[in-house]
């Protein structure tokens, strides 16, 4: 197939891919470049080379606090979304409930609604019904937008599993709980793992809900960065951003090792 592509098109596609890579990766490269600059001001290409902005970040209570909150919330979201979404996916997959199709649509619906609309609704409703927002509130709202991903990845692996496993387990004497725990859950694991990665990443990077639901003591890392960018960006923002990029790279590496990145990307 590749052989029969005209030569000029092949050259064109190499140029095209290179340009696309530049568009996609340029902002990340620039951020990393700025972070190692010696200069007081944001400059790219960087002047000189230093890690002073990193040490400044690591001694900044604002950044460390925000980072800690981000991690706490992301871990909560990962746990909530994986448990709740995985259980729901099993129920949807079995198609034994009379409204299974509706159920699937309900669980995937947060995917369709723009986050900003949900964020306003959540802000108004929560503060009027339950008072000021807490980290748990924010984690619950992140869970809502992460839930469809967990449901989708789990449904995908369940769809590929042998449909007779549960029946086979019944003929081997497994009761309800044993079937769930020893047969169904192990089949879900790759999907749950992919969903957990999605959930962690979505929560850790999420800025819209976190901006609407922020509070004096509830500032996540993206919100902290957004605030800096609106008012007084300095190279320390680049250092924090670079740390976030590095975390993403680690996450991608782990995902590729555990699940295969190409497969994950098509989920």
């Amino acid at each position: 197939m590749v052989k029969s592509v005209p030569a000029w098109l092949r050259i064109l596609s190499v140029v095209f891919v290179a340009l696309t890579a530049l568009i996609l990766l340029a902002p990340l490269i620039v951020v990393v470049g700025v972070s190692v600059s010696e200069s007081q001001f944001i400059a790219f290409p960087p002047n000189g080379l230093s890690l002073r902005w990193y040490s400044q970040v690591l001694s900044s209570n604002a950044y460390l606090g925000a980072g800690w909150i981000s991690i706490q919330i992301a871990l909560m979201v990962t746990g909530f979304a994986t448990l709740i979404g995985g259980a729901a996916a099993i129920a949807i997959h079995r198609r034994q409930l009379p409204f299974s199709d509706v159920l699937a649509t309900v669980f995937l619906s947060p995917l369709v609604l723009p986050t900003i609309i949900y964020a306003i609704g959540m802000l108004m409703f929560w503060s009027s019904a339950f008072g000021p927002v807490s980290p748990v509130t924010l984690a619950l709202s992140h869970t809502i937008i992460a839930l469809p991903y967990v449901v989708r990845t789990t449904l995908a692996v369940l769809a590929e599993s042998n449909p007779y496993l549960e029946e086979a387990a019944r003929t081997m004497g497994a009761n309800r709980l044993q079937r769930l725990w020893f047969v169904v859950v192990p089949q879900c694991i790759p999907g749950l793992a992919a969903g957990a990665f999605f959930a962690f990443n979505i929560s850790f990077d999420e800025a819209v809900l976190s901006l609407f639901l922020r509070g004096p003591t509830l500032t996540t890392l993206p919100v902290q960065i957004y605030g800096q960018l609106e008012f007084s960006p300095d190279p320390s923002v680049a250092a924090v951003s670079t740390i976030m990029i590095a975390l993403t790279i680690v996450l991608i590496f782990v995902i590729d090792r555990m699940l295969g990145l190409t497969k994950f990307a098509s989920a």
Partner: protein
Amino acid sequence: MANVRLTSIQKSFAKTAVLHSISLDIASGEFISLLGASGCGKTTLLRIVAGLESVTAGAVEIDGRDVTGLPPEKRDIAMMFQSYALLPHLSVAENVRFPLRMRGIGNREEQAERVKAALETVQLGHLSERKPRQLSGGQQQRVALARAIVSKPKVLLLDEPLSNLDARLREDMQVELIEIHQRLGLTTIFVTHDQEEALSLSDRIVLLNAGRVEQEGTPAQIYSQPATGFASNFIGSANLLPAEIFEGPDGPVARFADGQALALARTETARGAVTVALRQEDLSLSAEGNGPRAKVRTRVFLGARNRYVMSLAGQPLRALTANDLDFADGQEVSLAIDPARVRIIRD
């Protein structure tokens, strides 16, 4: 080991009846085949014995105990699925141990011993630590068999277990199934659409058609005395030709639509319009002869044998012959058949 008794089993899916009042007595230690084309209800019947499907009416008894309302996990059965249904996350040994673990049979050492014995029975002792996906289809099949026999169930249910194997492996597995059945003496219900499998494995065959028992009997009975047109067509895929029986000078004669006649056994009592069943392998062909003449349409080379497709009285007629018999397309050949081998089905 136990007997199984099915009493007037009926099953409907959303008002469509798939099983019409089926009753069956299966003796302890018997190997019985449910044979039929796809959609005849044989798998549904098996699943009803397993408890995976409820009955619309009727009762299932295992070992003298009514189990109609019991879920599969409470019936002492084992089932082998067409797709094997091995648990992909467990090793071979863990798969085989699964029924023991779920049923709480024996302690860890006893379980390990029984797993080892079961795996040796199917000659897979050396692969116990592999995962199912690292095994060939035939090996997976053996694991499934080991898993089915390890708990020494009262009834062993086999749902077309050989249909995913290639011809060679299938023959090996048939021999192995017979040996295991002889050794363990498990009451076995075997579902298949393959008449050869049913004929070679079973003590008894139940031929199902459209949710009813068409005929039941030993393999020899089913093969040599098919009771109905369906049975003779399904077993040995006989040629079915409409004919009329007259009293000839030398006994009864079947006359086909084109006036040609075929001599029948003197003991044949039927007269008038019937269907004549002629087995492919019972027909012999010759260029010169005084039997009914058929026109060769085409020859199919099968290796060890030839199949000739001919036409007789406007009907297709197939015959299996030795592979050195050579007729040209369009040639007229003479048919001969032992009158005792001709089956007459009254319309």
